[in-house]
Each structure stands twice: as C-alpha cells, then as structure tokens.
C-alpha cells in the first residue's frame, strides 16, 4: 500500500531509510511482555497522522517507543535514517504524553523555563508560548494550583518552544474545554503543513476533522494505514431533519430529531435529496450519522 508519495508502510521500496520516521518490524512493551507486535510503517511527508485504536491496543506504547522512551524488543525506529537512541534523533522530536509531566515545585513560568532549557529555547520563546496558548495570566501560579485543563495547556505550550521536524502527540486535546481544544487543533493543523504530526485521540470526529491519514492499532498490530478519505464505513447512514413532519417519512427509524436512511454511499446523496424534495419533504439538515472511523474500534 503506497500512499501517493506521502507515507507508506514498510516493505514499500521507498522511505525506510530517508527523512522522516520509520518503524521497522518493531515489537515493544513493558517488562518483557510485548504490547506492540511487528509494527512497520514509514512516514516522510508533512501532515497529521491520526493513531486510533481501542483502549489497550498499544497507542501510548507506540508513542513511547517512537520517542525513544521504551526500547524495542526487536526491530528499529529510525528518525531521518538514524536510530532513535541517538541524541541527534531525539532532538528532532517533540513528544507530548497523555500525562501532563509538569514538574511540581515550580510556577508555570519556571516550569516552561526548565523545558526551554531542555529544548535550548530562550526566555523570549517562553514569553511567546505563554501568549500562544493563553496561559500568561497563570505564569506566577504554582502547578498544583491549576485545573486539569490549565495544566494541559501548559503542557501543550512546551511543543511550541522549539521547532522540531516530528511531533508525537498523545491525546493533546484531552481535558481541554471545546474552545481551547479548537484553538490547539488549529495550532497543530498549522504545524502539520510543514511537520509530521502523529496524533492520538479518542474523539473520532476530531480525528476525521484534522487527520490526513489514519494508523489503526488493534491488538498491538498495525491494522490499517491509509488516507482517511479512503475509509468507507460498512454502512453509510444519513439522518434527515425536517422543517415540518411529512408522511413520506412514515415508518423511518429515528435517532432524536433525525430520520435515518442507509444509502449505498456518499455518491447516492444528491439523488436521495432530490427524491425527498419531490415527495414534498422540507429538509432542514442532512448529515452522515456514523463515522467510518468507528469501524476501526470493532
């Protein structure tokens, strides 16, 4: 499976040794028990690559292995062709764990100063990210005084201290309110124009909205690596919301205000709308009711 020159699983004749991130038959886990089994893929073009999978599938383990925190039991992780255990490789990555990882005993400003030191960023960079993720007013507060969402914002701020080629983001919008989650997604989308972003989320609508590719992990194995737009659900169900009740919809199953109908696929939608209108149905809204990404969890 070759992804139009943007990303490909290993075994493809390209990309396994070049620029970007390459995972070659990697098995990894905890205390000798493998969680990931022979995962292989290669990514060399910018974009958001959404990592999906049910709880316990191995998403976090994949991020920890790609970032060099866990050592693979077998196989190799290469960053720009160099093994991940080389410092040069690590210095090309940004990693955001699902845990905030903020050092207690410091104020927000001091914590970001510490990470700026580790990133070889400057005090001016800290000032910039304080404004970027809207935590300037929190800068003198000690970390235990922050809410979970505020901590997440500070944690996300670290990502923008220094420019990196590859971003590994494990649930970056968890615990954030919708407004802040949207702002962070926008920042990440901007990043993805020039960077490789691996992004895990349990929010399938978010994943579909921002993702360009999907890597699905099931039982520790790479079950799918494809463009999100190529994914088709096993069922294509649309919901119709109407202005006035109509006899034409009698007998249709319902979900809330929506009358449901299964269609062969998105290409059948225009004819479906014409048919409803010809029968006098006044359509207020029509939407796809299921998300094809849901099928990756079954």
């Amino acid at each position: 499976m070759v992804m139009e020159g943007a990303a490909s699983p290993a075994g493809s004749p390209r990309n396994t040794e070049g620029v970007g991130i390459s995972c070659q038959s990697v098995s990894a886990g905890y205390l000798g028990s493998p969680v990931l089994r022979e995962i292989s893929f290669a990514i060399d073009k910018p974009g958001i690559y959404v990592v999906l999978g049910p709880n316990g599938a191995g998403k976090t383990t994949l991020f920890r292995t790609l970032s060099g925190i866990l050592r693979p039991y077998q196989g190799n992780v290469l960053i720009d062709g160099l093994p991940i255990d080389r410092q040069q490789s690590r210095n090309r990555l940004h990693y955001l764990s699902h845990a905030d990882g903020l050092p207690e005993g410091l104020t927000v400003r001091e914590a970001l100063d510490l990470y700026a030191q580790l990133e070889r960023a400057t005090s001016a960079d800290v000032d910039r990210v304080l404004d970027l993720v809207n935590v300037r007013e929190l800068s003198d507060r000690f970390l235990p005084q922050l809410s979970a969402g505020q901590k997440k914002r500070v944690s996300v701020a670290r990502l923008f201290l220094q420019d990196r080629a590859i971003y590994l983001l494990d649930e970056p919008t968890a615990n954030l309110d919708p407004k802040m989650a949207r702002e962070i997604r926008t920042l990440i989308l901007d990043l993805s124009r020039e960077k490789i972003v691996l992004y895990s989320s349990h929010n399938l609508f978010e994943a579909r909205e921002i993702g360009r590719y999907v890597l699905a992990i099931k039982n520790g194995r790479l079950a799918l690596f494809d463009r999100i737009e190529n994914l088709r659900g096993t069922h294509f169900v649309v919901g119709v919301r109407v202005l006035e009740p109509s006899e034409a919809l009698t007998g249709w199953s319902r979900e809330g205000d929506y009358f449901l109908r299964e269609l062969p696929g998105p290409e059948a939608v225009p004819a479906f709308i014409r048919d409803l209108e010809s029968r006098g149905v006044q359509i207020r809204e029509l939407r796809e009711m299921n998300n094809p990404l849901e099928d990756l969890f079954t």
Partner: protein
Amino acid sequence: MIPTLTAGSATSEGPPSLLGITIRRSMVLGRFFLVYGTGISVLLGVVLGLVSRSSFAAAFPLLLPIFASVGSMGGLAVFTSDRLKGTLEYFMAYGFSPRRLFLNFLTATLVLVSIVVSVGLGVGVGLYLARGNAFTPGLAVAFGLYAVPMSFASAAFAATMGMYWSALSSPRAGMNSPIGLAPFIGILPPVTTLFIVVALGASGATTSVTTFYAIAVAVMALVVVFVVLLLALINRFLRRERLLSPA
C-alpha cells in the same frame, strides 16, 4: 504540491544538567523535612551546648546524622512526584537515562544533607565555642569520622532505597509510601552502629572509642558499597518502564 518536511534544530548534544533546578525543587517540595531536620539539629546543638560541654561532645555528633537524613527527603520527594506525574517520561524522551536521573536526585539529596549539616554544625559548634569551650581533637574526630560522613551515608542510603522502592512499587500515599518510610530507612545506619556497640558492651566485650569508630566506619563502608551497587545495577533492575507514570 506536497510541501516538504522542514527540520527543526537537530544537534547531537545531550540534554543539559537538571541538577540546579532539582536542588531548588527538592528544597520546595521537601521544605517541611528540610526545616524540621535543620531546626531540630540546631535546637539540639543549642540545648546540648547549654546543658554541658560533655553532653554536647557526646550526644550531638551521634544524633546529627539522624536529623540530616530526615532533612534531605526533598530529593526523594521530587523523584516520587516526577514519576507519578509523568515528568520522568519527558526527561527520558529528552535523552536522560535512568542512571543519570537517579544520580541527579541523589546529588540533590546530598546537597540538602550538606545544608542541614552545615547549619547544624555551624550553630551548634559556634555556640559551643562561644561559651568558651575548646574544639578538642576528640570532637574533631567525632564530627570528621562519624557525624559528617554518617550523615551523607545515611541520606544516600535512604534516597537510593526510597527511589528503588518508589520505582518498583505501586503508588502509595501516607506513611506507607516511600516518602513516609524513607526517614526510618535513613536512621538505620546510625542506629545499627549504636546497636552493635551496645550489643558488644552487653556481651561483656571491651568497647572503646576506637571500637566505636571502627564499627561506624565499617557500617558506613557497607552502606556506601550497597548504594554504589544499587546504582550500578539500575539498568538491570530499573528498566525504563519502571520510571513511567502509572496513570
């Protein structure tokens, strides 16, 4: 057109030292222990110095390591907090090895010990001298051969055991946590020394000051060897996944 990948800075330099900030955080997170250990050491020095010259010379060097060990718990407090909150995970992603992280927290612990010992000794001995007492060779030996090295050995023992314990066990709170129990671990070396001396005396063996120092030096040597051994075996017993947040 598909945009090309732009690289960030990718030096081959390792991550910079965390020691300065770790010492500072140890003082903040372990402030109760630091204030308590230093305060009791000073109080002890003042009270014993006021009671009599012999009381100070006999008891102060013996008790100082206990409170120095208690006062240095901040290093372990930071390690435990960083593990639980996932901060160690970030540090490893930046390229810190588990051994380097351990040494960082251990060094911070030893800096805290030096604060307690310096303040305790400074105030205690200063007051002792101010009262017209002489700093005898016996007192110098008591501090140089027992109180100071035993303070560092006990604190290193407590911190190393506590870090191993914290990394190898599930998170616990309160007195049953590594932080709750480490002070008791820290007093083991001086208490063991005293116990051996008392046991020898009770068994009818002749004990002298020389015997006491010989036993103390032997206990300290054992403790140092044990700590060095644990540090050497970090890669074997404390694999990287042991330092990850359990959350």
